[in-house]
């Protein structure tokens, strides 16, 4: 298969994550996963299946209790907090269910925050942000503040922010969870478009129907991979 030849962007090897308690709560119980460049993958599971934990571990927001996470071949287990932060800023784009735009900042400013911590000049960040906002269809909303935008528009801004700096992988957590179905469809369509343009995207969702529309789907159950449609 052609996909096999493409380079691995993200790899999970025997990843476990448990939270302190008596007994400890095992959210992830030994996960192996491979995400290759150019994939559009759905990570699906019911509430409590460990998918959000997995997304945090994949995005270097959280460290696994055991096992290894590799991003572009780099083992994250030996990295310091500073190195993990820097890696997130450079190589990972995040899209959140509640958009998480920063209040009081315009759409352009929010998007340009995507490269704020890369030491890139404001003018360059702004021109990149404007280009991306045009790309996600918000060319006419550049100076709007988050509260002046609809939910769908806010999520588009968030997507543009995640695209800043061309990250190796984009991780989206229930990105349509706060949107109506029509808007959701538009957002999913946008993801497909971005994927066609070359972005590697992993979407976490509990929505099986949504997941079905993606080329790849990994089902989580009780902290284990129950099914991987790509393996078939």
């Amino acid at each position: 298969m052609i996909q096999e030849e493409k380079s691995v962007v993200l790899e999970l090897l025997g990843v476990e994550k448990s939270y302190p308690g008596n007994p400890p709560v095992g959210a992830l119980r030994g996960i192996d996963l491979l995400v290759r460049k150019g994939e559009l993958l759905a990570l699906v599971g019911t509430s409590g299946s460990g998918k959000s934990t997995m997304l945090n571990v994949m995005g270097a927001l959280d460290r696994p209790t055991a096992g290894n996470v590799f991003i572009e071949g780099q083992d994250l287990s030996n990295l310091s907090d500073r190195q993990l932060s820097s890696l997130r800023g450079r190589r990972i784009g995040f899209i959140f269910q509640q958009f998480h735009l920063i209040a009081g900042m315009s759409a352009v400013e929010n998007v340009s925050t995507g490269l704020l911590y890369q030491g890139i000049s404001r003018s360059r960040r702004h021109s990149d942000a404007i280009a991306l906002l045009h790309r996600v269809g918000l060319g006419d909303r550049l100076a709007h503040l988050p509260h002046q935008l609809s939910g769908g528009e806010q999520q588009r801004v968030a997507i543009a922010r995640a695209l800043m700096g061309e990250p190796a992988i984009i991780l989206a957590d229930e990105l349509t969870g706060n949107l109506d179905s029509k808007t959701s469809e538009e957002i999913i369509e946008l993801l497909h478009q971005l994927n066609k343009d070359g972005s590697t995207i992993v979407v976490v969702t509990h929505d099986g129907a949504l997941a079905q529309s993606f080329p790849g789907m990994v089902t989580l159950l009780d902290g284990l991979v129950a099914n991987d449609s790509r393996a078939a």
Partner: protein
Amino acid sequence: MTSNTGFSRIKVADAIGVGTLGMRTRKTRTLLTALGIAIGIAAMISVLGITSSSDAQLKSELAALGPNLLEITPGDSFTGAEVSFPADASKVVERIGTVESSSAVFVVNASVRRNEFIPKQQTGGITALAVDLEMLSMIDGVVAEGQFLDSTSANLPNVVLGSVAAERLGIVSTLRSPQVFLGDTYFTVIGILAAAPLAPNIERAALMGVEIATELFDLQLEPSLIYARVNEELLDDQRRFDETRAVIAASVLPNAPSEVSVSRPSDLLTARTSTQNAFTGLLLGLGAVALLVGGVGIANVMVISVIERRTEIGVRRALGALRGHIRLQFVFESALLAALGGVAGIILGGLITVAYASSRDWVISVPTASLGAGVGLAVAIGTIAGLYPAARAARLDPAEAVRPRV
């Protein structure tokens, strides 16, 4: 892995923009929080300003009165006997290192009248004094009419009248060389002095040269009053000033220094200064308390702000911000908040000072160093107040912070 080298970094201009975001988006809260600091700083600045204005006023009053002028007179002896100074007392005083100049005044035993037809008893309280030529500059005296005694005129029967003496004798001008009857001789009035508040006994006197007084009136060469100007540096050093006073007394009457009275005409005002200083300390303390409360207020608001902005912090961490960036953002915001209060405080304090000082017709003086120190103090307090909230923000677990909130 070239893409993974180096740490996240942020440009200074961007860091400033990030640090001001909280203030820009929460204006009312910013103003209210800064107000606490502003009140503290304003209290301190106005206390310092009012004290400084009052001091400046005092100094200008003292300067007018000649704070380094000493009046040396025979005091009361233990037995009640009359004390008299030796003839060379003025010269002795002048030889003291910290005394710049001195001048002796001798009482002339003669009545001063407009003319010979006025009864001897009607002197109008005017005394005749023999003075040396430096006396005028000694008391900062000014000649209003004619001229003062010089080396020639002092040897002739000439007098210069003090302002009060001239008024009582009805002499307003020296143009027609008016004469006064002094003892049993007519003296020509060659000059009239302007008012000299520092030396009331000079104002009420007719002044003549020591030579002519000795010649005509059998002058007792025992000075009844010695004026001395001490080095101005002593004014800032009370201990040396007191030493000089003691040295003067001991030099004039080595056997009985306690019988020499060394007074300072401008001394009346010093009591006022000391009471004010006591108040200054108290009010500054109150200002400091207000400032402390303001600092606690800032810390409080910053803690709340960190809780409210948990998601923003998480997003920034997801976007690559290091803990240091988050810490810097909140410390900067806190310091800036306090600086805003500090600037408002010095403006307010300055205005209070100006208003108070002008209402009292004082010289307006706001110490510029205190303005800088006021803002500096505010920034320091804001920085300290921000340390704990910023540390909390930096410690937030990014995965926890970005979790959806219900």
